[in-house]
């Protein structure tokens, strides 16, 4: 990767991280802050404040990581950073370890 391309890659990576972390913050800490209010809403027996802490935020966490892995792996392809490149690195690494 050229220097400008590497910078572009890193900028987009940081942007994605920031967006996902904002969501991460809102569904965990944000929901906890207003949990006493949310608890007034009850769906299927669940007070929503309680549900967010016990299940809702967890579902969100799993989805956030899924989106990150999917987006970043797609971006790697876009920047022609494929798994084959990395496999080469791995083979070289193994040689190195033996030399040690």
């Amino acid at each position: 990767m050229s220097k400008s391309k590497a910078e572009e890659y890193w900028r987009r990576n940081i942007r994605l991280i920031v967006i996902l972390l904002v969501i991460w913050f809102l569904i965990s800490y944000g929901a906890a802050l207003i949990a006493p209010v949310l608890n007034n809403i009850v769906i299927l027996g669940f007070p929503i404040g309680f549900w967010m802490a016990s299940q809702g935020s967890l579902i969100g966490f799993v989805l956030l990581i899924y989106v990150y892995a999917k987006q970043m792996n797609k971006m790697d392809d876009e920047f022609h950073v494929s798994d084959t490149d990395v496999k080469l690195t791995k083979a070289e690494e193994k040689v190195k370890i033996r030399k040690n």
Partner: protein
Amino acid sequence: MAAISSGGDNSIFQSKLVRYYGMFTLGFLALTVIILLLEVSVGLPQQLIAGIYMVLTFGLYAVIGVATRTKALDEYYVAGRSVPAVFNGMATGADWMSAASFISMAGTLWGIGYDGMAYIMGWTGGYVLLALLFAPYIRKFGQYTIPDFVGARFGSNSARVVAAVMAIIVSFTYVTAQVVGVGLVMQRVLGLDYGVGVILGLGGVLFCSFLGGMKAVTWTQVAQYVILIVAYLVPPIFMSIQLMGNPIPQIAYGQALSEINRLENEQNIAKKYIVPFNEPLSNAGAIAAINQANGFFGTKLGTPAPVAIPSATAPELGDWRNTPWDFLALTFCLMAGTAGLPHILIRFYTVPSIKESRRSVFWSLFFIFLLYVTAPSYAALSRLTILKNVVGLGLVKDKAANGREVTSVVGSDGKPLAWVTKMSSIGLMSINDANTDGKLQFSELTINNDLIVLSTPEIAGLPYTISALVAAGGLAAALSTADGLLVVIASSIAHDIYFKTVNPKAKPTTRMNLGKGMIVVAASLTALLALPQLALVAQMVAWAFSLAASTLFPIVLLGIFWKRANFQGAMAGMVGGLIATLWYLVNNYLNPANNIMGLSHLSSGIFGMIANFTLMIIVSLLTAPPPIAIQEMVDQLRNPVGEMSEGGEMIHQH
């Protein structure tokens, strides 16, 4: 198992793995059904059932350990970097879910309701930080340990040694708690002596990690994940069918929450299950721990005067209930601690590529999620059982099998409930008829947290096979975590301290033998520490998260994301973070009147994190930027393509 060691063709390797572990899962389920049917139809004796589960699971771990034993260093430390994402996810799940997750967590929720959700969110939300901020870069760095990263990034062996010492302290407290968990399961469910249980459990751990290092540990952990998740899901499904007529506990427990709320109002229980931020501050735990240690070691340490906040006699101490600060701080400490725990971080050295490392964190959290999303339903259904079926029953004196006379309750058949008598006689629960009306009120009942998961099958009247299954699951959870931790301790000493610092010319065989020796030493020390069953050990596990959050988390984070961070900043940050955390922790633990915004000692890591980040930034800016070679290394770290230059070569002696 030969396929596991060779890199080979990835898809053939994967489909083989899927076949092996798929067959194993089906076999395990079939075995449970067969034993269950045999128990119900011909009355298979309990000892035999327990024996079958023990011999088969331990036998399986031993077989995997022997089949994957290795002499190659990269297999010993990082499983040859050939573990596919899904399987690394399962192994990470088992590595992560310890005796605390499996045995104690649902019990804690049972007791404190909403406030316990700090553990549920903290121990899962930390994986978001791990996925976004750490995993791909750790994989790209591609060495063996986390101190490796610290040492290379900050170009210093002293930073490496400090990080290694932190890794050892954190891992050691954690592994001790696992071994205590093993002893408890063996004692309570299988009826073995606690000490024998500890020795047997450690034997199982040693067998695996000693022979095959990370490689054997990884493939054993995959099997252990299957066992622990099956064991955790079965009891709540039964309870959910019994109580709510719905086989999906994660959904059915909504109704259970409404019922709990109604019953709590009816029974005038002041502390409501679903109401957030309800925990008082107290030093009862510290006093109990000190008294116990005095009794065991014959020491005469003074105990602090009891303090509880809010206090009726000392209203000037304030009332921090109904403020969210402690809950939020604890959740954050648990998240950052999760992301900074060395035995989890090193799991991302074991996958074949950066893309796989990203997928692998997803699978890790997915497999962890299955247990964590079930725990609140486990807790709520147990709470409902007690409120609905046990509270309000008449009290009666009963003589237990061990000869002790205890207060029990009268069941619907007019006889004392057997499980209440048994649990009371071994000190796991107690009933104190405070208002002497001869009936059980909720406030008159004290239950040990660990009892909820281990004894639920018995309380719900399920066959013994389910109890034995839960025991096997609890053992799998504790053993798998202990395995991973022992590898971290061994590699911190043999790799980071000996090879990288003391004797860089050490031969691979010497390093391997030293690593194996360290595993045995660490395991023996663990046994010594686990045998007295100190309450302090459980406390130390909760503190381990604050320690990891305030020392390792900030320096790894800034090491990747802030090029300007240098050696001086990292050292100041780690040491300052450690001191700030310990200072708040000790002061608050002994006297909760020493608090800032009502934070308990469990959240002390938040102060360490603030100190670490602040010191690291200020000291780095006041001193020279890191050398060009290191700045280039950070660039390489951020770029998923190309090779890292050898981190170890850039080390300047400090």
